[in-house]
C-alpha cells in the first residue's frame, strides 16, 4: 500500500486539501477547523494508524461532519489515509464523502453529517470507557457554534456536566454562524452545567494546545475556539 511519504507537516495541509478540491490554494471557510484538527492529531490525541483499534486510544469524534476536507487532510498527514484515496474523494466507491463514514475510513470514530449527534455519542463513549475501568483515554468531540442550535446537544451538555465526565472534551469552533446567536457566550451554556470552560483563538495553535491540555479535574472540558465569522 502506498503511504504519504512527504506530505506529513502542518505546512502540507493546503496541498493535501488541494488533492481533494483541485484548488491548491484552498482557503475556504470550511477550513475553520484546520488548526484545531492539527493540534489535536499532532500533539494532543494519543492515537495513530497503528493504535486505531486499541481500546485505550484517545477518541476524536467529528460531530460537525460537513466541510471534512481539513479532517481528511490531517488524517492523510498522519498516515490514516493515503494520497491516492484523497484524489478520488466523493466518487461513488470512494471511502471519503462530504460527510465521513466510520465504517469506510480507518481511524474515523463516528459517521456524522446530521448535526447534533456527536456529543451524545461522545457521552456514551466516555461512559463506556468509565464502565470498563479505562480512565486514561480522552474523548474529544468537535462541534460548531451553529450546531449548538440542535437541542440534542443540550441534553448531552447537561447530563455530561451532572455526571462529571472528566474524560470528555467538547471543542466548539465558533465562527458566529448560529442564526440567532448565543447571547452571553457559548461558554456560558457549558459552565452553567458545571463544565470547565476555556477559550482560545481558533488559529492560534499554541493557545489551542494550552487550552486542550492544561489539567482539569472532576468535570468535562469545553474549549471554545473563536475564528473569523463565516462568509
Amino acid at each position, binding site marked *: 500500500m502506498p503511504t504519504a511519504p512527504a506530505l506529513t507537516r502542518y505546512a502540507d495541509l493546503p496541498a493535501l486539501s488541494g488533492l481533494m478540491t483541485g484548488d491548491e490554494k484552498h482557503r475556504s471557510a470550511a477550513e475553520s477547523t484546520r488548526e484545531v484538527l492539527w493540534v489535536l492529531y499532532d500533539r494532543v490525541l494519543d492515537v495513530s494508524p497503528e493504535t486505531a483499534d486499541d481500546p485505550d486510544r484517545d477518541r476524536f469524534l467529528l460531530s460537525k461532519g460537513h466541510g471534512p476536507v481539513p479532517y481528511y487532510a490531517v488524517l492523510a498527514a498522519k498516515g490514516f489515509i493515503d494520497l491516492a484515496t484523497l484524489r478520488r474523494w466523493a466518487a461513488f466507491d470512494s471511502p471519503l464523502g462530504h460527510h465521513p463514514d466510520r465504517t469506510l475510513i480507518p481511524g474515523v470514530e463516528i459517521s456524522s453529517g446530521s448535526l447534533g449527534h456527536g456529543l451524545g455519542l461522545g457521552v*456514551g463513549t466516555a*461512559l463506556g470507557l468509565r464502565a470498563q475501568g479505562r480512565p486514561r483515554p480522552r474523548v474529544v468531540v468537535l462541534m460548531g457554534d451553529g450546531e449548538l442550535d440542535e437541542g440534542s446537544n443540550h441534553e448531552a451538555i*447537561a447530563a455530561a456536566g451532572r455526571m462529571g465526565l472528566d474524560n470528555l472534551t467538547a471543542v466548539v469552533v465558533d465562527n458566529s454562524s448560529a442564526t440567532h446567536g448565543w447571547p452571553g457566550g457559548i461558554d456560558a451554556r457549558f459552565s452553567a452545567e458545571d463544565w470547565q470552560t476555556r477559550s482560545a483563538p481558533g488559529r492560534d495553535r499554541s493557545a489551542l494546545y494550552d487550552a486542550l491540555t492544561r489539567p482539569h479535574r472532576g468535570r468535562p472540558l469545553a474549549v471554545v475556539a473563536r475564528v473569523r465569522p463565516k462568509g
Partner: protein
Amino acid sequence: MTAAPPAPAPAVAAQPMRDTFADVVAAALDTDPRLALVLADISAGLFTDAARRHPDRVVNLGIREQLMIGVAGGLALTGMRPIAHTFAPFLVERPFEQVKLDLGHQGVGAVLVSSGASYDSPYYGRTHMAPGDVALLDSLPEWTVHVPGHADEVAPLLESALHQEGNVYLRLSERGNAAARPTGPGLQTVRSGSARSTGVAVAVGPMLDRVLAATEDLDVTVAYAATVRPFDREGLNRLVARAGQADVLVVEPYLEGTSAHEVAAALADRRHRQRSLGVRRDTEVRGYGTPADHDRAHGLDTAGIAERARAFFLP
C-alpha cells in the same frame, strides 16, 4: 359453513412483561460485564438495586431520549452491549434519527426494549401510543423485532438479544395470551388446517388467542410469530403451499399492513390474496378508556377479527 360468528370470548390475558424484563436484565448485569442499561426515568424504580450494584452500567439520564439512544451508540462503540428502555413512543418515535444514525449508521448495535405497546394505557391519550413503531423500524435495514405474546416468552427472546451484536427491538405489552408459545425464529404452527383449508392466519404476539377464537369455526392454519423481523418468508411459503388456498390473513398488534410487504415477498412465486389487520391507519382514534375499548375501535377484539376473517376466507 354458515355458522354464526363466534361469541366474543375473553382472549386477552394480563402479562407482566415489563417486570420480567427488569428481572432478566438485573440478573444479566450481574454476570455479563459487557451489558449496560440506559434509562430516561421511565421504569428507573425497577432497577434501583441493579443501579446500586452497577452504578457505572445502569445509567438514568433523566428525561432525555435523544441522549439515551446517543449514549447507547457510544457505549456500543466502546464494545459494550447497551440496552435502552422507555415507553414505545419515546424510544422509537421521538429519537428516531438517533436510532437511524447513532446505531445502524455507526455500524453498532443495541437492544431497545419498549413498554406500553400500541395502547396499553389509553387513558394517557395519543401521546403515549406507538402503533407505528415497528413500521418505522422497518424503514431501517437489519433490525430484529420481537413481539412476545406472553411474559414467559420475554426471557428467551431477551437473552438471545443480549448475546448477539446487531440491533434488536423487543416490544413488550402488559396484555397477551393465556399460554406461552415456543419463540423459535420461524413461524410456529398452532392449529393446522386441512389440505382443503381456505388459507393461513398469522397471529403476531398478543393477538394469538384472539385469532384462535376468531377463526375456530374456519378451516385455516393458524401460525404464531413472536419474531416478525426477520420475517419467516420460507415458513409462510411452506404453510401456504400445504393449504387449500393461497390466502393469508396477518393480524398484528400495531399499524395494519406493517408486514404486508413481507407476505408479498414470501408468496411472490404464486398467485395469492392477503389481508392485513392491525391498528387502523385511516384515522386517529381520539379516545381514552381501556385497552379493550381500543381493541373494539380498531376491530382487534375477537368479534372484529372474526367478522373480517370470515369475509376474507369465505368471500
